[in-house]
């Protein structure tokens, strides 16, 4: 369970999150939508503990992440996986080494066992024969798939996605959407996705939350968001 209570965050005097409250249901896909620059990525980084709030609480399974020291944060993060906007694969490592990285760092599995899990996770994201390729040899969509394979390598309870379909063509977007839906169904993990892609949002989300001027102005099922009379939401979703 993830809960944000009255979270405020400013950068150089500019308020990005303003008394933000949000509850994220476990084992569901929650998509946080909002305009570019509205603070979606900042919100995600708060959940992950990469940024500490100026005030307020970020509770992950009841623990306030803002009060944890580095060591405790590292422990807490082991329940997380994260797919970054541009996948953030390590350039100096092969695809296989990227996916194996969290396994090598946090488990005592043998090389053979790690190789098997790497193959399994790459297959789960529909990738074959790419283990020895470098990230620079992959397309944008493939990089995201590898990023997702790495994010789920340790079977995390919570997976965060930072704009997973940005910069991809419509067919590739559909592929990533299906991948998110299937992976969540298979892993039963809590998925938090931030996006400004409305088509993708309504396809994958169990719950949609709209971030506007530093606050969550509405959270509900895709149908509830579609039928909302809030002019900001109406305008935002009608762009699609």
């Amino acid at each position: 369970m993830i809960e944000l209570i009255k979270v405020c965050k400013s950068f150089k005097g500019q308020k990005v999150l303003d008394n933000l409250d949000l509850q994220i249901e476990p084992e569901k896909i929650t998509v946080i939508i909002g305009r570019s620059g509205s603070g979606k990525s900042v919100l995600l980084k708060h959940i992950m503990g990469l940024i500490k709030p100026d005030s307020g609480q970020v509770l992950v399974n009841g623990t306030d992440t803002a009060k944890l020291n580095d060591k405790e944060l590292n422990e807490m993060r082991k329940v997380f996986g994260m797919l970054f906007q541009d996948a953030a694969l390590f350039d100096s490592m092969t695809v296989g080494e990227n996916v194996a990285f969290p396994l090598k760092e946090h488990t005592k599995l043998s090389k053979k066992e790690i190789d098997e899990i790497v193959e399994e996770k790459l297959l789960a994201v529909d990738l074959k024969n790419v283990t020895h390729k470098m990230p620079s040899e992959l397309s944008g969509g493939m990089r995201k798939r590898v990023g997702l394979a790495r994010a789920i390598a340790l079977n995390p309870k919570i997976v965060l996605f930072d704009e997973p379909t940005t910069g991809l063509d419509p067919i590739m977007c559909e592929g990533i959407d299906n991948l998110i839906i299937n992976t969540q169904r298979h892993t039963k993990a809590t998925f938090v996705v931030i996006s400004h892609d409305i088509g993708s949002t309504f396809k994958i989300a169990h719950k949609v939350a709209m971030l506007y001027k530093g606050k969550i102005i509405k959270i509900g099922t895709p149908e509830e968001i579609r039928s909302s009379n809030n002019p900001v939401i109406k305008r935002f979703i009608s762009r699609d």
Partner: protein
Amino acid sequence: MIRLLELAGRPFIIAVEESGRIMLLLFSAIAWMFRPPFRFRIIFKQMEFVGVNSIFVVMITGAFTGMVFALQSYHGFSLFGGESLVGSTVALGMTRELGPVFTALMVTGRVGSAMTAELGTMKVTEQIDALHTMSVNPIHYLVMPRIVAAILMLPVLTVVSDFIGILGGYFVGVEMLKINSGIFVAKIVEYVELEDIFNGLIKAACFGLILSLIGCYKGINTTGGAEGVGKATTQSVVLSSITIFISDYFLTSFMF
């Protein structure tokens, strides 16, 4: 007036703040040196990058430094018939000063800049955030191994530079300027003490710490995309070089 003073003092405040942050990074890196896992593989990989891959550059620099130093000192000493001192002058100059400083400057250009560019690129492409999300501390994984490798390898490179520099001086002095080889070597043995070499190596280790610490600091604090990486790399090389020269003075006045 107060506004003027504020404006004049701002760069000083920024410099003090930056120095503080660099020192905090150093303390953090030291703390991580003693926490498992010990990252030997990454340290050895970095040692190869800092040390083995820099040998050729250091040899060329060392050789020509020793050669030109022999040439210049010969012209000076020949004015009063002191040509026999060329060997010891070259050896003392190389071991105490030129070996460590020129090696550090070459490694700053080759390795310090690469450290900033690599870590800077990792920062702007969120690879460092990715490390955080995988519960891996970037100081432990990226910074500490680079600092350890540079501290260990700079003295080794300096030994190579000293040796090749003296060899270059011997070649110019004995083969080209026809100084007696026995006298050339005897004067080196007479005047150069182990302490000269040893203190030069301590200096080199300090320079290794400086260039790697500043290289990593500038890298992990890079902002602003590709342009930011370029700026950070330039700043890293300039700041490291200046710091090496300044610390060289203080280390020399303290040790010799």
